[in-house]
C-alpha cells in the first residue's frame, strides 16, 4: 500500500505542472493588454504603462511564471484590484459556503442514489427498475436551478418552512447554517444522485452476474449479505469514481444554483470576477478548483486501494 500511495502522489507532479502553466497563461492568452483591460478605456497611457510595470508584465514570460509560482507556494496569489484585498483572502471567504453546500449536496445525493441504484439492480428488468431509471433520467435532465426555483415556490413561499435564499455562516449556529442550505442541497443533490444511481445500478448488475456471487449464495448467505457485503464492495469502484467526480463539480462551485439561492460561494466569485476581468482572482480560483479536483481524485485513487486488494497489492505479488 505504501508504494501505491507514493506512486499516486508522484504522478501528481506532472499534472500540477501542466495545470500551473495553463492557469498562468490565462492572463496572457485572453485578448487585449491586461493592464489596459483592468484600468478600462478611460485610462491614460501613463497609467497603463505604470500598471504594466507593477504587474511585471514587461519581464520575460518565463520569469513572470516563476515569480507567480513562487508566490503560489507562499500562499500569495496576488491581489484583487476590484475587491482591494489579497486573492487568497477572497477565495477563503467564498470557500466556506461552497464546501458546506457541496458536502450537504453530496450526502443528499448518496443517500438517494445508493439505495435506489441497488434496488433497481436487484429488480432489474422489472417495473420498479424502469421507474427508478426513468426518475433518474428526469433528475439528470431537469436543470438544477429550475428544480431549485420549484423548491423555493413550494417550501419557502407556500409552506414557509425555509428561508427563500441567503446564507448564514456556521458560526451563527448549526441549524441557522443548515436552514439556508437545505433547498440548494436538494436541488444540486438530486441531479448528482441521478448520475450516481445509474452508475450504481449498472455496476451492481454487472457484479451480480459474476461467479463469486453464486458462490456466496451457495454458502447459504442471506440475500442482504450477498448484496451488501459481496456485491456492493466489488461494484463500488466505478461508483466511487462518479462520487468523486460529482463532488469535484460541486466544489468548483455550482454557479447557477448559488446565484438562484444567493449563496456567496466560489461559483459567484468566479462569475463576478469574469464579469469584471479580475484576472488575479480568476487565476486563483481556477487554480484552487483544479487543485481540489486533483486532490479529490487522489483520494478516490487511494480509496480504490482500500476497497480492492488487487489495486494495492499489484506490485508486491
Amino acid at each position, binding site marked *: 500500500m505504501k508504494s501505491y500511495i507514493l506512486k499516486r502522489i508522484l504522478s501528481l507532479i506532472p499534472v500540477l505542472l501542466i495545470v500551473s502553466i495553463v492557469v498562468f497563461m490565462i492572463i496572457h492568452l485572453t485578448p487585449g493588454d491586461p493592464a489596459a483591460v483592468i484600468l478600462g478605456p478611460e485610462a491614460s497611457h501613463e497609467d497603463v504603462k505604470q500598471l504594466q510595470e507593477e504587474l511585471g508584465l514587461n519581464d520575460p514570460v518565463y520569469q513572470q511564471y516563476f515569480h507567480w509560482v513562487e508566490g503560489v507556494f507562499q500562499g500569495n496569489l496576488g491581489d484583487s484590484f476590484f475587491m482591494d484585498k489579497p486573492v487568497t483572502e477572497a477565495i477563503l471567504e467564498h470557500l466556506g459556503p461552497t464546501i458546506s453546500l457541496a458536502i450537504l449536496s453530496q450526502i443528499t445525493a448518496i443517500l438517494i442514489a445508493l439505495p435506489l441504484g441497488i434496488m433497481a439492480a436487484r429488480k432489474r428488468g*422489472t417495473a420498479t427498475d424502469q421507474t427508478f431509471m426513468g426518475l433518474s433520467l428526469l433528475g439528470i435532465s431537469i436543470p438544477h436551478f429550475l428544480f431549485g426555483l420549484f423548491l423555493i415556490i413550494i417550501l419557502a413561499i407556500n409552506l414557509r418552512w425555509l428561508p427563500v435564499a441567503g446564507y448564514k455562516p456556521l458560526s451563527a449556529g448549526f441549524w441557522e447554517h443548515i436552514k439556508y442550505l437545505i433547498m440548494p442541497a436538494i436541488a444540486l443533490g438530486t441531479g448528482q444522485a441521478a448520475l450516481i444511481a445509474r452508475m450504481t445500478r449498472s455496476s451492481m448488475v454487472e457484479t451480480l452476474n459474476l461467479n463469486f456471487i453464486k*458462490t456466496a449464495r*451457495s454458502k*447459504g448467505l*442471506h440475500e442482504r449479505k450477498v448484496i451488501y457485503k*459481496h456485491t456492493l464492495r466489488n461494484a463500488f469502484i466505478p461508483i466511487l469514481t462518479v462520487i468523486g467526480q460529482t463532488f469535484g463539480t460541486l466544489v468548483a462551485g455550482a454557479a447557477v444554483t448559488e446565484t438562484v439561492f444567493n449563496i456567496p460561494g466560489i461559483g459567484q466569485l468566479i462569475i463576478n470576477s469574469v464579469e469584471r476581468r479580475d484576472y488575479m482572482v480568476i487565476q486563483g480560483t481556477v487554480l484552487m478548483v483544479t487543485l481540489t479536483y486533483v486532490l479529490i481524485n487522489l483520494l478516490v485513487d487511494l480509496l480504490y486501494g482500500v476497497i480492492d*486488494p*488487487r489495486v494495492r497489492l499489484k506490485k508486491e505479488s
Partner: protein
Amino acid sequence: MGDHLLEVNNLKTHFRTERGKVTAVDGISFHVDRGEVLAIVGESGCGKSVTAQSILRLFEEKGVTSYDGEINFEGKNLLKISDSEMRKIRGNDISMIFQDPLSSLNPVFTIGDQIMEPIMLHQKLSKKEAYERAIEMLKLIGIPAPEQRVHEYPHQISGGMRQRVMIAIALACQPKLLIADEPTTALDVTIQSQILELIDSLRQKLDMGIMLITHDLGVVAQHCTRVAVMYLGEVVEEGDVESLFENPLHPYTQGLISSIPQLFGNRNKKLSIIKGMVPSLNEIPKGCRFAPRCPFADAKCMNEKPELETLDHNKRIKCWHHQTIKGAVSNAT
C-alpha cells in the same frame, strides 16, 4: 426407493426469456446415495449445470425461473421449502463447487474470510473457532503454510490452489452432498487429477454423496460409480460406470464414447464425431430429441417421444431401438 440421500423426480426448470418460456431441464429423474459418485455427462448446453443449480435453487429470481417436480433431500422437497430453510441447507448440508475457480472466489476478501463465512453462519462458531477451523480445512485440502495463506487474497494464489480453496469452502461444514460442476475443466491436466483425487479421498473420509458434472468421460471412468447421460434437458441413459462404458445402449452415449481419442491402437482410424449441432431449446425436436443427429433414427423416432425404460441392473434408457442397436458399437470397432 425413498431412502436415497438425494432423489430428483421429474424435475423441470423453466426460464422466462424474451423469446418465450424455455425449459432447460425437462423432466429428469435420478438419485444420489451416501458415499457414491454420480456423474452427469453431456455436451455444453444440455442442462447439466442448470440441474445442479436447480437443486440449490440458485436461480431463484421471482418471475424468471420456475420449477416443477420434486427434489427430495432427506425427506424434504427442496422445491417446496421456504427460502430461509433453503439457506440453512445451502453450504451446510449441500455444497457446491463451480467450474471456474478464478472467478468463483470473491476478489476483495481474504481466503480465510471466505472459508470462515459458512462456518460462522451454519455452525454458530465464534470468529476465533472459525479461524481455527479454516486453518484445519486448508491443511486438509493440502495447502502449505495455511497460517500464512488464510490472510492472502485469491489473486495471490494459483488456479489449482483456488479450486482447493473452493473445496475447503464447500466442505467447511461437512456437507452430506457435494455438487461439483465441472470442477477441473479450467485446470491443467496434472492439477485436474490432484483435485479429483482430493475430492475422492474427502468423500471417503466424510462419507458424502457427490454429484459430479463433467463432459470428460475419462474423469467419469476413473472416479464415478454411476453415470447419467444428459442430452438437451433430458436423461437419455443411466447406469453403472462399467456397464455404461462396456455396453452403451443409447446412440448418443455410443457417440460420446467413440469420440474419445485413443492413445494406443490404430492411429489412422478417424475419430468419430456426432453429426450436427445441439438444437436450440426453442426448437426442440418433436419425437426423440436426439433423432435428427442419430444414425439409427427412423420415422418413429422423429414423431414419437420415447420414455425412460428401466432395464436390469439399475440401467435406464430412453431410446426406441436400444434392443436392435445393442452391440452395434462393439461390432463396428
